[in-house]
């Protein structure tokens, strides 16, 4: 019963940790707008937390730059299992307009396993919520495997 409770709860309380890997701030603002009264992601239990140790879902924005790469990887490694990595915006997926710049190491999927990609520049809040909801499903599956 306890296991089932945990499994059910995993789906219902995903906490987000947001990493900015050299983003232009567009996606960052969109992510915050997801939590505003208009879209209110908190009704699904989403909560933005300040420490990777508390997080379930890591949201990465920005084309992973040379400067930020080791820091992003370190922060991601500090998130306890089960965890889910969501890239937000086109930058961490393809590099977007910064592709093949000398300072950009992206895409992120070269370095870690990315669970969900939310495309767009910047993605609309609805898309973000959809992606996060998908991430919670993946999280629940990972929970189940354990």
């Amino acid at each position, binding site marked *: 019963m306890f296991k089932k*409770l*945990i*499994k*059910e*709860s*995993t789906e*219902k*309380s995903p*906490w987000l940790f947001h990493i900015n890997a050299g983003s232009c701030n567009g996606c960052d603002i969109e992510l915050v707008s997801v939590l505003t*009264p208009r879209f*209110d992601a*908190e*009704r*699904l*239990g989403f909560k*933005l*937390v*300040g*420490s990777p*140790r*508390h997080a*379930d879902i890591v949201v990465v924005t920005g084309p992973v730059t040379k400067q930020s790469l080791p820091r992003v990887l370190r922060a991601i490694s*500090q998130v*306890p*299992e*089960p965890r889910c990595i969501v890239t937000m915006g086109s930058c961490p997926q393809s590099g977007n307009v910064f592709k093949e710049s000398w300072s950009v190491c992206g895409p992120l999927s070269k370095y870690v396993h990315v669970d969900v990609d939310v495309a767009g520049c910047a993605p609309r809040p609805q898309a973000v919520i959809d992606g996060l909801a998908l991430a919670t499903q993946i999280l629940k599956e990972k*929970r189940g495997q354990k």
Partner: protein
Amino acid sequence: MFNWLTVLETLGYILIFPGFLFCFLVGLFLSGVDRKIVAKMQKRVGPPLLQPFYDFFKLCGKETIVPAAANKGMFLAAPLVGLASLIVLQMFIPIFNFTAFSTMADVIVILYLLLIPALAMILGGAASGSPYAGVGLSREMVTVIACELPLVLVLLAVARTVGSAMGKGLVFSMSEIVNYQSANGSLITHVSMIPAAIAFLLIIPGETGSHPFDTAEAETEICEGLLAEYSGGPLAVFKLSHSVKVLTLSSLFVALFLGGLGGKIAALVGSFGLSAAAAGMIGGLLGAIVLVMLCLVITIVFISLVHAITARLKVEQVFKYYWTVVTGLALLSLVLAWYGF
């Protein structure tokens, strides 16, 4: 002298009614209500009422990482000590006429027991070795100092008021304070106690570290401060302690200032004409329900409302606020009580 029934009763107290289960359910329920109400005030739908339960169970299922720099024993033990001491504290606070162990508690003991959960959190955070926890620790301690002075004054004023009313000089015993109220009406009806009650209500958000005073766990500035390195089970226990603390402080307020309702409940139950045992049972149950109701009101007005309408203060502002405004109220009350109003 060894009586199994007594042991069973004690265990029941600890595990079920004023103890663990009650604290767990009501505490998390209160914080669920708090989150919901804050959302409503901000015109949001808000999380489901059971969200804190989900959070708790989810955290229980997560991996617990002990950082290499941490002092493992202290790191893991601190949350448990904090929770256990809160539960014991809850058992000392009389719920109207129902007293589990309150005969041996008095207000100064309670004042000190209230420090232990905060101290457990401070030591746990310190043991994690994180500099964010160091900053959080400093802020938490300053908040504790800030709340301590008005709390002391309020408790002294209560002791004096009840003492002079009972002709004893001063009364520190919790059960005597509650018994006096259930016989003679709530303390809040005394003129001198009104500022004290307001001061106590203003202390609640500070002591529990809820919104405008949550400098110690500011997630945006210092990465959750004391809890920065906690994950999984220990974090769940800390979150639970937070919620239970709201319940503890609210029920302490009810016991100190609204104990007169106990007399009303006893009279109401008496009018049913039940046997003594059944009356006791029903009275206890009714008392618990009334207590939860009152705690809800206190939570909504003094935690959720304050949360929704204020922005986080700086830690020196927290200190200044408590040592001027709230202390002023408490001091006023003490002076009034001293001269017998």
